[in-house]
């Protein structure tokens, strides 16, 4: 019986320990008001006197602002926005600093909340998606003045992205953050005794609903051997954005096996994405060219040959193709472009629908009427995130 009680205690402690992790949020500590700079060059005054000034103050591109540290803190601890004069955020100094708390929170109850905040000096408390101007729930540009907003409706099943900015130009610094849960008349101090009695909800430094974009695959040549050193682009555009205006969000380079992978923090709920490649033909090699020459003796034996071997685009394989390859290899300027506008690259991938690579790889007829990759370039997590690109390069065996 005694062991059973001990087991229950351990379970409770473990649960609590786990629960503590749900109060972590991100914090960015900044040094502000660089000595050699004034409001004319920083874009903000002693106190952040407007949302624009606050934006400038927490912007690392501002001339007077620099990063002290990016870290994670327990928002219910005194490192969080609480404790009044006991507030103890990570900071480089006691004056001319700014603290930005950022994370996600899911309230324990559904209903109308009230929030009030008071800091020294200015602050802004923001929750995204509620429709408030600049997402600001409470704010004060100055010091030691409570600002209150009531009837803030929150759903207990929703994770809300929040941000709270606090800055101190000079003198003392402090912070208080209080909330009133639905159907209650009293405010709870975040992390205080009341707050512990009526905890606000779960906190997170990362978006619990995020679906990070990942992708992987191979770039292989005509002989289905990986091509190393090829740059692969992960391109995104805003979710459900009409049209096709993807821009590069990340790049990777294939390894010796032609393998690439992306593990991003980009939220698939926010972005559509695609994988793009821009293979570059290497300098042709004598061994490859000799292989092609010997291949003339056996005749066209693969559909792939119509791209990689018919470099003068005559529809046949002959000694003139071989001569052209050698001149290309030598860098003869007359062969900067292959004769008859012969293509240098043809690509497809296992996503192409209908997939044509198996036929290209196995058959021996001319399939150059297939346009290859380009018409089917979209990938999405709904269909998977792995693919193999096949690249046929003129003058290259693989």
């Amino acid at each position, binding site marked *: 019986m005694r062991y059973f009680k001990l087991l229950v205690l351990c379970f409770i402690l473990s649960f609590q320990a786990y629960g503590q992790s749900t109060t972590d949020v991100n914090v960015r500590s900044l040094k502000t008001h660089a000595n050699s700079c004034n409001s004319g060059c920083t874009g903000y005054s002693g106190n952040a006197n407007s949302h624009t000034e606050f934006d400038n103050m927490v912007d690392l591109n501002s001339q007077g602002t620099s990063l002290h540290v990016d870290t994670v803190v327990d928002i219910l601890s005194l490192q969080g926005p609480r404790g009044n004069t006991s507030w103890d955020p990570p900071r480089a100094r006691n004056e001319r600093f700014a603290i930005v708390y950022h994370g996600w929170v899911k309230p324990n109850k559904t209903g109308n909340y009230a929030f009030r905040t008071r800091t020294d000096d200015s602050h802004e408390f923001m929750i995204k998606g509620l429709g408030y101007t600049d997402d600001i729930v409470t704010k004060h540009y100055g010091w030691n003045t409570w600002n209150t907003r009531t009837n803030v409706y929150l759903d207990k099943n929703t994770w809300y992205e929040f941000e709270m900015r606090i800055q101190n130009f000079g003198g003392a610094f402090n912070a208080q953050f209080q909330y009133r849960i639905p159907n209650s008349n009293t405010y709870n101090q975040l992390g205080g005794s009341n707050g512990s009695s009526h905890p606000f909800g779960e906190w997170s430094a990362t978006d619990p609903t995020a679906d990070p974009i990942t992708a992987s695959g191979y770039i292989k040549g005509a002989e289905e051997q990986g091509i190393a050193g090829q740059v692969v682009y992960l391109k995104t555009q805003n979710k459900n954005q009409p049209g096709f205006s993807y821009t590069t969000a990340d790049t990777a380079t294939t390894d010796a096996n032609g393998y690439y992978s992306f593990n991003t923090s980009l939220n698939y709920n926010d972005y559509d994405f695609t994988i793009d490649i821009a293979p570059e033909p290497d300098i042709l090699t004598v061994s490859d060219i000799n292989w092609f020459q010997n291949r003339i003796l056996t005749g066209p034996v693969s559909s792939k040959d119509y791209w990689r071997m018919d470099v003068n685009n005559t529809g046949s394989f002959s000694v003139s193709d071989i001569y052209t390859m050698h*001149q290309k290899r030598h860098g003869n300027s007359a062969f900067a472009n292959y004769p008859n506008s012969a293509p240098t690259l043809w690509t497809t991938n296992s996503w192409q629908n209908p997939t044509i690579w198996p036929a290209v790889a196995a058959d021996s007829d001319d399939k150059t009427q297939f346009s290859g990759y380009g018409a089917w370039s979209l990938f999405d997590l709904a269909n998977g995130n792995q693919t193999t690109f096949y690249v046929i390069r003129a003058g290259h065996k693989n």
Partner: protein
Amino acid sequence: MKLKNILLTLVLVMSSLTIFGQTTAPDATKPYVILDSAYALESVTSGNATVATIYYDNTSGNDVKGVQFSFNYDNTVFDPPVIAYGGTSGAGSDFYLSSSEASGVVKVVWVYTGSTTSFDIAAGGMFTVTLPFKSSYTNGAVADMDFTNNLTAYYAKADGTDGALGTSDNGGNFTEPAFNYTATILNNATNPAESIPVILQKSSDGSTWTDVTSVTTAVDGTAVFSESLDQGYWQIRLKIASGLDASTALSTADANLIAQIAAGVQSASGVQFYTANPNQANSVTASDSYLVFARLATNGTSYANNPDVLFFTEAQYNTISNATSDQSGSIPGLTEFLSPQINGTTSGNFYLLILGDANGTGLN
């Protein structure tokens, strides 16, 4: 007369060009690969492979950077050949040659791999085709080489596109290796026999002989043979048929001389034991003299029971010539001359003696 000589000279020049013009382009419309009219086979017993050269020529004015073509060969005679670049294009090592063989068809691709943009293949022998005999082959007909369409004949232009490569087949025939021989037929060491028809014969087994050709001796007694004949395979000999009419060599002087020998007025020399004994019976007697007188008196063209001519090898003749007695018992001579095998030799002297020609006029 001068004009006639000029025309004759032109005919000779044209004939020479016809003979030796088998390795040049037939026209200037395009570059050509060329098969010569004939290629000499190696002897089957030599252990060597036959080598045929494929030529290249181009008078079109277009630079040529590479060629491809195909040809066939007699794969019942030869094992698959080895193709090598034997050109003089100055390509050094800046070329790559590949070839393949299947069912008697050879495909060839040759390309310039260097960076000199002005490169152009030079005319001349470009490829050597080394053809080893099959182990089962001994002798027999060899089919000629021909260009085929198994690999379209192209040349690579300077702009990297195809051009039509001409194929000029002047025969591509294979002939047995040359056999050259000069037979000299003599009445004696200083008296050549003219207008003697000498036959060259060959035999694969030594029993059945076939005439190859016949040459009549010239004024110097020589019959010159130049034939395609593999003496490594064939047994070769000379033949002079019997029945020669040697009437022109006979005269009353011969009959008188025979009578003097028969009477013991003169002694017979070595050869006179044959020439003074036209009836080939006993020794030299009055009947021999009579036989000659009778033939002359009747304008006869032959003897009733004896040939006009007997043939001897040089060794036999020397023995007879140096003898002081009749050697006909051991060296009777041949009515129809069949020489020993002449394989491995290039010339030989053979002698004839005319029965009744005691004074050695001979056939001239």
